[in-house]
């Protein structure tokens, strides 16, 4: 019965491992919810009119260097804006409190990230602090629409009649 026992344990381990992998794949890959370990650092809030397809976990960077990541995104029903929680690493504790945050795109087709531009204040952001100056995500479609709208206004209607029809 000894070999039978170890065989059953081996099978049990294998099945357990397989199911753990399956659960990981089905719950952790799609959608949000992934936490890479316990985050260190302090929280800063910023409100945006439009976050585009910014996702929790996206990087937060200053001058191209990553200083933290997006922890959560929620919709604030009182002022109809998106409230983004940024988790900034503790070592970057000298970010001026009048800095601005903007949502930017990596490369042409890459994902969104939050860029912070340093302000000139002598006081710094601390845990629970707010960034008041924000610039929303540039939504490519509205940019294109705007461009064609301008184009049509300037008398280009005969050149791009189809696009004009699509413009609301």
């Amino acid at each position, binding site marked *: 019965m000894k070999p039978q026992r170890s*065989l*059953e344990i*081996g*099978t049990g*381990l*294998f*099945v357990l*491992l*397989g*199911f753990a*992998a*399956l659960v*990981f*794949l*089905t719950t*952790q*890959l*799609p*959608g*949000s*919810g*992934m936490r*890479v370990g316990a985050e260190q650092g302090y929280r800063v809030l910023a409100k945006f009119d439009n976050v585009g*397809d910014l*996702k*929790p*976990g*996206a*990087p937060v960077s200053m001058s191209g260097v*990553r200083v933290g*990541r*997006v922890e959560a995104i929620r919709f604030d029903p009182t002022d109809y804006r998106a409230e983004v929680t940024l988790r900034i690493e503790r070592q970057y504790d000298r970010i001026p409190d009048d800095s601005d945050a903007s949502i930017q795109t*990596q*490369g*042409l*087709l*890459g*994902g969104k*990230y939050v860029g912070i531009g340093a302000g000139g204040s002598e006081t710094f952001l601390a845990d629970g602090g707010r960034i008041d100056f924000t610039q929303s995500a540039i939504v490519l479609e509205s940019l294109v629409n705007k461009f064609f709208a301008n184009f049509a206004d300037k008398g280009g209607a005969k050149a791009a009649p189809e696009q004009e029809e699509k413009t609301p």
Partner: protein
Amino acid sequence: MIAETLSRVGRVGLFLVRVLRQAPAALARPRAVVHQVYNAGARSLVIIMLSGLFVGMVLGLQGFDLLQRFGSEDALGIAAALGLLKELGPVVTALLFAGRAGTSLTSEIGLMRATDQLTAMEIMAVDPLRKVVAPRFLGGVIAMPLLVAVFNVVGLFGAQLIGVQVMGVDPGAFWSQMQGAVELDDVNEGIVKSLCFGVACSLVAVYEGYHAAPTAEGVGLATTRTVVISSVLTLLIDYILTAAFLGR
């Protein structure tokens, strides 16, 4: 030629029906099935994990090189996850399964055929389809999706290792973009594929073993056929399923 192929497909199909009819009886005594899950699954684990790691690392390198040209190396997570979930995970695992577990199933059953063990069971009024074939078939079918899942997780780890640790892709971007782009449907596609491959590879392996010529040479030939047929069948089914999923 066409008639021969058709009748062969028909024979395998009928065999599947006969095996499935014995499946409830085989499941009623689960110890044999557990044994076969161990044989087909647990014993393939090391080769699956090693292969998964390397496939993932290659994906990390190639994906990074490709995406860098578009300045979108942060999308590496998406590329690796979708590549593994939808294609490489199920297909490479099925091919390895055919070589590792499939051959051992075929030669084991073939040897039982060659040494009259299957006939002896029949004479003892024990159906070898229930006692020998069905547990092995079910063991393979159960083991395959689990192996694929393990392969995918290890592969993701490998891609992450190369992409994030070596190439310097931001880990947050790697995971967040992946989570943003991967849908539950993508995961399901991989699971459906792995189930189909599990049925196909296990069926071919037990069929070839059961119908092997009862000689050493016959068993050897059957083992070779298992690898060839399983591999081609896997790729064929993969194309059909991919087309079906994209067509939805």
